[in-house]
Protein backbone atom coordinates (compact mmCIF):
# COMPACT_ATOMS: atom_id res chain seq x y z
CA UNK A 1 0.00 0.00 0.00
CA UNK A 2 1.57 3.25 -1.13
CA UNK A 3 0.28 6.04 1.07
CA UNK A 4 2.01 8.70 -1.01
CA UNK A 5 -0.76 8.19 -3.58
CA UNK A 6 -3.13 9.45 -0.90
CA UNK A 7 -0.98 12.18 0.63
CA UNK A 8 0.25 13.59 -2.72
CA UNK A 9 -3.29 13.83 -4.04
CA UNK A 10 -5.14 14.72 -0.89
CA UNK A 11 -6.57 17.89 -2.45
CA UNK A 12 -8.11 15.95 -5.33
CA UNK A 13 -9.58 13.30 -3.03
CA UNK A 14 -11.05 15.89 -0.68
CA UNK A 15 -12.41 17.95 -3.56
CA UNK A 16 -14.14 14.84 -4.92
CA UNK A 17 -15.35 13.84 -1.46
CA UNK A 18 -16.92 17.27 -1.05
CA UNK A 19 -18.64 17.10 -4.45
CA UNK A 20 -19.96 13.60 -3.67
CA UNK A 21 -21.46 14.84 -0.39
CA UNK A 22 -22.94 18.01 -1.94
CA UNK A 23 -24.43 16.17 -4.93
CA UNK A 24 -25.90 13.47 -2.67
CA UNK A 25 -27.40 16.02 -0.28
CA UNK A 26 -28.93 18.16 -3.03
CA UNK A 27 -30.32 15.07 -4.74
CA UNK A 28 -31.68 13.81 -1.41
CA UNK A 29 -33.55 17.03 -0.63
CA UNK A 30 -34.88 17.42 -4.18
CA UNK A 31 -35.91 13.78 -4.55
CA UNK A 32 -37.62 13.92 -1.16
CA UNK A 33 -39.72 16.87 -2.32
CA UNK A 34 -40.42 15.36 -5.74
CA UNK A 35 -41.04 11.92 -4.20
CA UNK A 36 -43.54 13.30 -1.68
CA UNK A 37 -45.38 15.10 -4.47
CA UNK A 38 -45.59 11.95 -6.56
CA UNK A 39 -46.68 9.84 -3.59
CA UNK A 40 -49.49 12.30 -2.86
CA UNK A 41 -50.45 12.28 -6.55
CA UNK A 42 -50.67 8.49 -6.46
CA UNK A 43 -53.17 8.45 -3.61
CA UNK A 44 -55.02 11.69 -4.35
CA UNK A 45 -58.75 11.23 -5.07
CA UNK A 46 -58.24 12.15 -8.72
CA UNK A 47 -57.79 9.48 -11.41
CA UNK A 48 -55.64 11.60 -13.74
CA UNK A 49 -53.14 12.40 -10.97
CA UNK A 50 -53.03 8.75 -9.84
CA UNK A 51 -52.20 7.76 -13.34
CA UNK A 52 -49.37 10.28 -13.79
CA UNK A 53 -47.85 9.27 -10.46
CA UNK A 54 -48.06 5.56 -11.23
CA UNK A 55 -46.56 5.93 -14.69
CA UNK A 56 -43.68 7.99 -13.28
CA UNK A 57 -42.85 5.48 -10.56
CA UNK A 58 -43.22 2.35 -12.66
CA UNK A 59 -41.29 3.72 -15.61
CA UNK A 60 -38.41 5.39 -13.79
CA UNK A 61 -37.63 2.67 -11.29
CA UNK A 62 -37.53 0.02 -13.99
CA UNK A 63 -34.82 1.69 -16.06
CA UNK A 64 -31.12 2.00 -15.14
CA UNK A 65 -30.08 5.21 -13.39
CA UNK A 66 -27.14 5.49 -15.80
CA UNK A 67 -29.57 5.77 -18.73
CA UNK A 68 -31.25 8.71 -16.97
CA UNK A 69 -27.94 10.37 -16.08
CA UNK A 70 -26.60 10.04 -19.63
CA UNK A 71 -29.83 11.40 -21.03
CA UNK A 72 -29.89 14.51 -18.81
CA UNK A 73 -26.22 15.04 -19.63
CA UNK A 74 -26.54 14.69 -23.40
CA UNK A 75 -30.01 16.05 -24.13
CA UNK A 76 -29.51 19.30 -22.18
CA UNK A 77 -26.40 21.42 -21.95
CA UNK A 78 -25.85 20.90 -18.25
CA UNK A 79 -22.48 20.46 -16.59
CA UNK A 80 -21.65 16.93 -15.47
CA UNK A 81 -22.44 17.66 -11.86
CA UNK A 82 -25.79 19.34 -12.59
CA UNK A 83 -26.84 16.65 -15.05
CA UNK A 84 -25.75 13.92 -12.63
CA UNK A 85 -27.58 15.45 -9.69
CA UNK A 86 -30.76 15.92 -11.74
CA UNK A 87 -30.53 12.33 -13.00
CA UNK A 88 -30.05 11.01 -9.47
CA UNK A 89 -32.99 13.11 -8.26
CA UNK A 90 -35.34 11.85 -10.98
CA UNK A 91 -34.34 8.23 -10.29
CA UNK A 92 -34.36 8.34 -6.48
CA UNK A 93 -37.67 10.24 -6.36
CA UNK A 94 -39.44 7.16 -7.74
CA UNK A 95 -38.16 5.00 -4.87
CA UNK A 96 -38.86 7.66 -2.26
CA UNK A 97 -42.39 8.07 -3.64
CA UNK A 98 -42.97 4.35 -3.16
CA UNK A 99 -41.61 4.43 0.39
CA UNK A 100 -43.77 7.42 1.29
CA UNK A 101 -46.85 5.91 -0.32
CA UNK A 102 -46.37 2.73 1.71
CA UNK A 103 -46.02 4.88 4.82
CA UNK A 104 -49.20 6.81 4.07
CA UNK A 105 -51.12 3.61 3.33
CA UNK A 106 -50.08 2.25 6.73
CA UNK A 107 -51.90 5.08 8.54
CA UNK A 108 -55.39 3.73 9.39
CA UNK A 109 -58.21 5.00 7.15
CA UNK A 110 -60.14 6.30 10.15
CA UNK A 111 -57.54 9.04 10.59
CA UNK A 112 -58.36 10.58 7.23
CA UNK A 113 -62.11 10.19 7.79
CA UNK A 114 -61.89 11.80 11.23
CA UNK A 115 -59.80 14.70 9.91
CA UNK A 116 -62.13 15.28 6.97
CA UNK A 117 -65.27 15.14 9.11
CA UNK A 118 -63.80 17.65 11.56
CA UNK A 119 -63.71 20.13 8.71
CA UNK A 120 -60.18 19.87 7.29
CA UNK A 121 -59.77 19.88 3.53
CA UNK A 122 -58.08 16.90 1.87
CA UNK A 123 -54.84 18.87 1.58
CA UNK A 124 -54.97 19.97 5.22
CA UNK A 125 -55.76 16.47 6.45
CA UNK A 126 -52.81 15.15 4.46
CA UNK A 127 -50.46 17.85 5.70
CA UNK A 128 -51.38 17.96 9.38
CA UNK A 129 -52.73 14.49 10.17
CA UNK A 130 -51.55 11.80 7.76
CA UNK A 131 -48.03 12.87 6.69
CA UNK A 132 -46.68 13.48 10.24
CA UNK A 133 -47.69 9.93 11.20
CA UNK A 134 -46.47 8.38 7.98
CA UNK A 135 -43.04 9.99 8.17
CA UNK A 136 -42.04 7.82 11.16
CA UNK A 137 -42.56 4.65 9.17
CA UNK A 138 -40.85 6.14 6.16
CA UNK A 139 -37.59 7.18 7.82
CA UNK A 140 -35.69 3.84 7.69
CA UNK A 141 -36.42 3.23 3.96
CA UNK A 142 -35.49 6.87 3.30
CA UNK A 143 -32.19 6.23 5.03
CA UNK A 144 -31.60 3.26 2.74
CA UNK A 145 -32.37 5.42 -0.27
CA UNK A 146 -29.81 7.96 0.94
CA UNK A 147 -27.16 5.24 1.14
CA UNK A 148 -28.05 4.19 -2.40
CA UNK A 149 -27.88 7.82 -3.44
CA UNK A 150 -24.34 8.22 -2.09
CA UNK A 151 -23.30 5.06 -3.92
CA UNK A 152 -25.09 6.04 -7.13
CA UNK A 153 -23.52 9.48 -7.03
CA UNK A 154 -20.40 7.70 -8.32
CA UNK A 155 -22.11 7.84 -11.73
CA UNK A 156 -21.18 11.53 -11.79
CA UNK A 157 -17.69 10.26 -12.46
CA UNK A 158 -18.85 8.97 -15.87
CA UNK A 159 -20.17 12.38 -16.96
CA UNK A 160 -17.18 14.36 -15.60
CA UNK A 161 -19.12 15.47 -12.53
CA UNK A 162 -16.01 16.12 -10.42
CA UNK A 163 -17.00 13.67 -7.67
CA UNK A 164 -14.88 11.16 -5.76
CA UNK A 165 -14.98 8.59 -8.57
CA UNK A 166 -13.99 11.22 -11.13
CA UNK A 167 -11.12 12.55 -9.04
CA UNK A 168 -10.00 8.98 -8.44
CA UNK A 169 -9.76 8.46 -12.19
CA UNK A 170 -7.71 11.65 -12.53
CA UNK A 171 -5.34 10.38 -9.85
CA UNK A 172 -5.16 7.08 -11.70
CA UNK A 173 -4.23 8.82 -14.92
CA UNK A 174 -1.41 10.59 -13.07
CA UNK A 175 -0.02 7.84 -10.86
CA UNK A 176 -1.02 4.60 -12.64
CA UNK A 177 -1.41 3.15 -9.13
CA UNK A 178 -4.86 1.71 -9.77
CA UNK A 179 -5.07 -0.60 -6.76
CA UNK A 180 -3.96 2.03 -4.26
CA UNK A 181 -6.13 4.78 -5.74
CA UNK A 182 -9.28 2.65 -5.82
CA UNK A 183 -8.71 1.43 -2.27
CA UNK A 184 -8.47 5.04 -1.06
CA UNK A 185 -11.55 6.01 -3.07
CA UNK A 186 -13.34 3.03 -1.50
CA UNK A 187 -12.34 4.17 2.00
CA UNK A 188 -13.77 7.62 1.37
CA UNK A 189 -17.08 6.07 0.29
CA UNK A 190 -17.13 3.75 3.29
CA UNK A 191 -16.60 6.71 5.64
CA UNK A 192 -19.96 7.95 4.38
CA UNK A 193 -21.96 4.77 3.84
CA UNK A 194 -20.99 2.56 6.82
CA UNK A 195 -22.12 5.05 9.52
CA UNK A 196 -25.29 5.68 7.49
CA UNK A 197 -26.12 1.99 7.26
CA UNK A 198 -25.47 1.49 10.98
CA UNK A 199 -27.74 4.47 11.65
CA UNK A 200 -30.50 3.00 9.50
CA UNK A 201 -30.11 -0.39 11.21
CA UNK A 202 -30.42 1.29 14.62
CA UNK A 203 -33.55 3.20 13.56
CA UNK A 204 -35.12 0.04 12.17
CA UNK A 205 -34.55 -1.80 15.45
CA UNK A 206 -35.91 1.07 17.53
CA UNK A 207 -38.95 1.36 15.33
CA UNK A 208 -39.60 -2.39 15.51
CA UNK A 209 -39.45 -2.16 19.31
CA UNK A 210 -41.79 0.83 19.55
CA UNK A 211 -44.46 -1.00 17.55
Amino acid at each position, binding site marked *: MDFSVLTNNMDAFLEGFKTTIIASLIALVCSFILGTLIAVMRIAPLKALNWIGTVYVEFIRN*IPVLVIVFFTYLAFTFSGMTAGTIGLTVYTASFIAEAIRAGIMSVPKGQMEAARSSGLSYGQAMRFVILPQAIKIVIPPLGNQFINLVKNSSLLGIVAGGDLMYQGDLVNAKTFAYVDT*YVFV*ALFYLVLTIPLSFGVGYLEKRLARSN
Partner: protein
Amino acid sequence: MDFLKPFIEVYTPDHLKFLLQGFLVTLKVAAISIVLSFIIGAIVGTLRYAKIPVLSQILAVLVEILRNLPLLLIIFFTYFALPELGIEMEITTAAIAALTVFESAMLSEIIRSGLNSIEKGQTEAGRSSGLSYVQTLRYIVLPQALRRMVPPIVSQFISLLKDTSLAVVIALPDLLHNGQIIYAQKESYVAPVFIIVALMYFIVNYALSLAARRLELKQS
Protein backbone atom coordinates in the same frame (compact mmCIF):
# COMPACT_ATOMS: atom_id res chain seq x y z
CA MET B 1 -42.75 17.32 -38.72
CA ASP B 2 -39.04 18.00 -38.53
CA PHE B 3 -38.69 16.64 -35.03
CA LEU B 4 -39.88 13.24 -36.27
CA LYS B 5 -37.04 12.93 -38.73
CA PRO B 6 -34.39 11.69 -36.28
CA PHE B 7 -36.88 9.12 -34.96
CA ILE B 8 -37.46 7.78 -38.47
CA GLU B 9 -33.72 7.74 -39.09
CA VAL B 10 -32.94 5.95 -35.84
CA TYR B 11 -35.71 3.35 -35.88
CA THR B 12 -34.45 1.40 -38.86
CA PRO B 13 -34.38 -2.41 -38.87
CA ASP B 14 -30.55 -2.38 -38.78
CA HIS B 15 -30.38 -0.14 -35.74
CA LEU B 16 -33.08 -2.09 -33.94
CA LYS B 17 -31.28 -5.34 -34.65
CA PHE B 18 -28.06 -3.81 -33.34
CA LEU B 19 -29.81 -2.68 -30.16
CA LEU B 20 -31.36 -6.11 -29.68
CA GLN B 21 -27.93 -7.70 -30.02
CA GLY B 22 -26.77 -5.42 -27.23
CA PHE B 23 -29.80 -6.30 -25.16
CA LEU B 24 -28.99 -10.00 -25.55
CA VAL B 25 -25.53 -9.31 -24.10
CA THR B 26 -27.18 -7.42 -21.23
CA LEU B 27 -29.55 -10.33 -20.58
CA LYS B 28 -26.79 -12.93 -20.85
CA VAL B 29 -24.45 -11.12 -18.46
CA ALA B 30 -27.34 -10.46 -16.07
CA ALA B 31 -28.55 -14.07 -16.17
CA ILE B 32 -25.11 -15.55 -15.48
CA SER B 33 -24.52 -13.05 -12.68
CA ILE B 34 -27.95 -13.79 -11.20
CA VAL B 35 -27.28 -17.52 -11.02
CA LEU B 36 -23.76 -17.13 -9.62
CA SER B 37 -24.66 -14.44 -7.09
CA PHE B 38 -27.70 -16.39 -5.93
CA ILE B 39 -25.55 -19.47 -5.21
CA ILE B 40 -22.80 -17.48 -3.47
CA GLY B 41 -25.32 -15.27 -1.66
CA ALA B 42 -27.21 -18.34 -0.38
CA ILE B 43 -24.02 -19.94 0.92
CA VAL B 44 -22.75 -16.75 2.56
CA GLY B 45 -26.16 -15.88 4.01
CA THR B 46 -26.59 -19.37 5.48
CA LEU B 47 -23.07 -19.45 6.92
CA ARG B 48 -23.70 -16.10 8.59
CA TYR B 49 -27.07 -17.30 9.90
CA ALA B 50 -25.41 -20.41 11.34
CA LYS B 51 -23.05 -18.13 13.34
CA ILE B 52 -19.94 -20.21 12.80
CA PRO B 53 -17.28 -18.50 14.93
CA VAL B 54 -14.58 -16.48 13.08
CA LEU B 55 -15.92 -17.38 9.61
CA SER B 56 -19.21 -15.58 10.26
CA GLN B 57 -17.39 -12.48 11.47
CA ILE B 58 -15.06 -12.40 8.48
CA LEU B 59 -18.01 -12.78 6.12
CA ALA B 60 -19.91 -10.06 7.98
CA VAL B 61 -17.07 -7.58 7.49
CA LEU B 62 -16.71 -8.51 3.81
CA VAL B 63 -20.44 -8.21 3.14
CA GLU B 64 -20.68 -4.85 4.94
CA ILE B 65 -17.78 -3.43 2.95
CA LEU B 66 -18.98 -4.69 -0.42
CA ARG B 67 -22.58 -3.62 -0.13
CA ASN B 68 -21.59 -0.16 1.06
CA LEU B 69 -19.39 0.49 -1.96
CA PRO B 70 -20.58 1.85 -5.30
CA LEU B 71 -20.86 -0.98 -7.84
CA LEU B 72 -19.14 1.29 -10.35
CA LEU B 73 -16.04 1.29 -8.17
CA ILE B 74 -16.06 -2.52 -8.00
CA ILE B 75 -16.35 -2.72 -11.80
CA PHE B 76 -13.44 -0.30 -12.27
CA PHE B 77 -11.39 -2.17 -9.69
CA THR B 78 -12.03 -5.55 -11.31
CA TYR B 79 -11.10 -4.40 -14.78
CA PHE B 80 -8.34 -1.84 -14.16
CA ALA B 81 -6.80 -2.62 -10.77
CA LEU B 82 -6.82 -6.43 -10.61
CA PRO B 83 -4.41 -6.78 -13.58
CA GLU B 84 -1.91 -4.89 -11.40
CA LEU B 85 -2.23 -7.80 -8.99
CA GLY B 86 -1.81 -10.32 -11.80
CA ILE B 87 -5.50 -11.12 -12.34
CA GLU B 88 -6.49 -10.27 -15.88
CA MET B 89 -9.98 -10.81 -17.28
CA GLU B 90 -11.58 -9.95 -20.56
CA ILE B 91 -14.48 -7.50 -20.54
CA THR B 92 -17.44 -9.88 -20.23
CA THR B 93 -15.78 -11.96 -17.50
CA ALA B 94 -14.81 -8.81 -15.59
CA ALA B 95 -18.37 -7.49 -15.81
CA ILE B 96 -19.82 -10.79 -14.58
CA ALA B 97 -17.24 -11.06 -11.79
CA ALA B 98 -17.86 -7.52 -10.53
CA LEU B 99 -21.65 -7.86 -10.67
CA THR B 100 -21.51 -11.25 -8.96
CA VAL B 101 -19.32 -10.05 -6.10
CA PHE B 102 -21.52 -7.03 -5.40
CA GLU B 103 -24.91 -8.73 -5.82
CA SER B 104 -23.82 -11.77 -3.76
CA ALA B 105 -23.26 -9.43 -0.84
CA MET B 106 -26.71 -7.88 -1.32
CA LEU B 107 -28.43 -11.26 -1.74
CA SER B 108 -26.66 -12.80 1.26
CA GLU B 109 -28.20 -10.06 3.43
CA ILE B 110 -31.69 -10.81 2.07
CA ILE B 111 -31.21 -14.53 2.69
CA ARG B 112 -29.75 -14.05 6.15
CA SER B 113 -32.59 -11.77 7.28
CA GLY B 114 -35.11 -14.15 5.71
CA LEU B 115 -33.68 -17.02 7.75
CA ASN B 116 -33.61 -14.85 10.87
CA SER B 117 -37.28 -13.99 10.40
CA ILE B 118 -38.31 -17.60 11.05
CA GLU B 119 -39.30 -18.04 14.70
CA LYS B 120 -36.71 -19.74 16.93
CA GLY B 121 -39.36 -22.25 18.04
CA GLN B 122 -39.26 -23.81 14.58
CA THR B 123 -35.58 -24.69 14.93
CA GLU B 124 -36.06 -25.87 18.49
CA ALA B 125 -39.01 -28.05 17.50
CA GLY B 126 -37.06 -29.49 14.60
CA ARG B 127 -34.04 -30.24 16.73
CA SER B 128 -36.03 -31.78 19.56
CA SER B 129 -37.87 -34.06 17.17
CA GLY B 130 -34.54 -35.63 16.34
CA LEU B 131 -33.42 -33.75 13.21
CA SER B 132 -29.81 -32.64 12.97
CA TYR B 133 -29.01 -28.92 12.68
CA VAL B 134 -28.46 -29.19 8.93
CA GLN B 135 -31.65 -31.21 8.47
CA THR B 136 -33.64 -28.65 10.46
CA LEU B 137 -32.22 -25.89 8.31
CA ARG B 138 -32.86 -27.77 5.11
CA TYR B 139 -36.36 -29.14 5.76
CA ILE B 140 -37.89 -26.73 8.28
CA VAL B 141 -36.32 -23.27 8.19
CA LEU B 142 -35.27 -22.84 4.55
CA PRO B 143 -38.58 -23.76 2.89
CA GLN B 144 -40.45 -21.27 5.10
CA ALA B 145 -37.82 -18.57 4.73
CA LEU B 146 -37.56 -18.95 0.95
CA ARG B 147 -41.21 -18.07 0.54
CA ARG B 148 -40.68 -14.80 2.40
CA MET B 149 -37.49 -14.05 0.50
CA VAL B 150 -38.89 -14.32 -3.01
CA PRO B 151 -40.14 -10.73 -3.41
CA PRO B 152 -36.94 -9.00 -2.20
CA ILE B 153 -34.82 -11.46 -4.20
CA VAL B 154 -36.73 -10.67 -7.39
CA SER B 155 -36.34 -6.95 -6.84
CA GLN B 156 -32.62 -7.53 -6.33
CA PHE B 157 -32.58 -9.34 -9.68
CA ILE B 158 -34.23 -6.29 -11.25
CA SER B 159 -31.53 -4.12 -9.71
CA LEU B 160 -28.91 -6.42 -11.15
CA LEU B 161 -30.38 -6.20 -14.62
CA LYS B 162 -30.36 -2.42 -14.38
CA ASP B 163 -26.86 -2.40 -12.90
CA THR B 164 -25.53 -4.35 -15.87
CA SER B 165 -25.67 -1.03 -17.75
CA LEU B 166 -22.75 0.21 -15.61
CA ALA B 167 -20.48 -2.16 -17.49
CA VAL B 168 -20.48 0.30 -20.41
CA VAL B 169 -17.60 1.98 -18.57
CA ILE B 170 -15.43 -1.00 -19.46
CA ALA B 171 -16.97 -1.13 -22.95
CA LEU B 172 -19.14 -4.24 -22.51
CA PRO B 173 -21.10 -4.31 -25.80
CA ASP B 174 -24.48 -4.25 -24.03
CA LEU B 175 -27.70 -2.39 -24.83
CA LEU B 176 -26.57 1.00 -23.54
CA HIS B 177 -23.20 0.65 -25.27
CA ASN B 178 -24.79 -0.13 -28.64
CA GLY B 179 -27.14 2.79 -28.10
CA GLN B 180 -24.12 5.02 -27.56
CA ILE B 181 -22.66 3.91 -30.87
CA ILE B 182 -25.87 4.87 -32.68
CA TYR B 183 -26.32 8.32 -31.11
CA ALA B 184 -22.64 9.09 -31.63
CA GLN B 185 -23.47 9.50 -35.34
CA LYS B 186 -25.65 12.57 -34.91
CA GLU B 187 -26.64 14.82 -32.04
CA SER B 188 -30.35 14.66 -32.88
CA TYR B 189 -30.26 10.87 -32.37
CA VAL B 190 -29.83 11.17 -28.60
CA ALA B 191 -33.51 11.39 -27.64
CA PRO B 192 -34.80 8.66 -29.99
CA VAL B 193 -32.05 6.26 -28.89
CA PHE B 194 -32.63 6.86 -25.20
CA ILE B 195 -36.37 6.39 -25.56
CA ILE B 196 -36.03 2.98 -27.20
CA VAL B 197 -33.20 1.89 -24.86
CA ALA B 198 -35.24 2.91 -21.80
CA LEU B 199 -38.29 1.08 -23.16
CA MET B 200 -36.34 -2.14 -23.66
CA TYR B 201 -35.05 -2.10 -20.09
CA PHE B 202 -38.48 -1.12 -18.86
CA ILE B 203 -40.36 -3.96 -20.56
CA VAL B 204 -38.21 -6.72 -19.07
CA ASN B 205 -37.93 -5.15 -15.61
CA TYR B 206 -41.61 -4.33 -15.42
CA ALA B 207 -42.52 -7.88 -16.37
CA LEU B 208 -40.23 -9.13 -13.61
CA SER B 209 -41.74 -6.78 -11.04
CA LEU B 210 -45.28 -7.80 -12.03
CA ALA B 211 -44.27 -11.43 -11.55
CA ALA B 212 -42.85 -10.58 -8.12
CA ARG B 213 -46.06 -8.81 -7.15
CA ARG B 214 -48.17 -11.80 -8.20
CA LEU B 215 -46.03 -14.10 -6.12
CA GLU B 216 -46.43 -11.75 -3.18
CA LEU B 217 -50.20 -11.75 -3.54
CA LYS B 218 -50.30 -15.52 -3.82
CA GLN B 219 -48.49 -15.82 -0.49
CA SER B 220 -50.79 -13.51 1.41
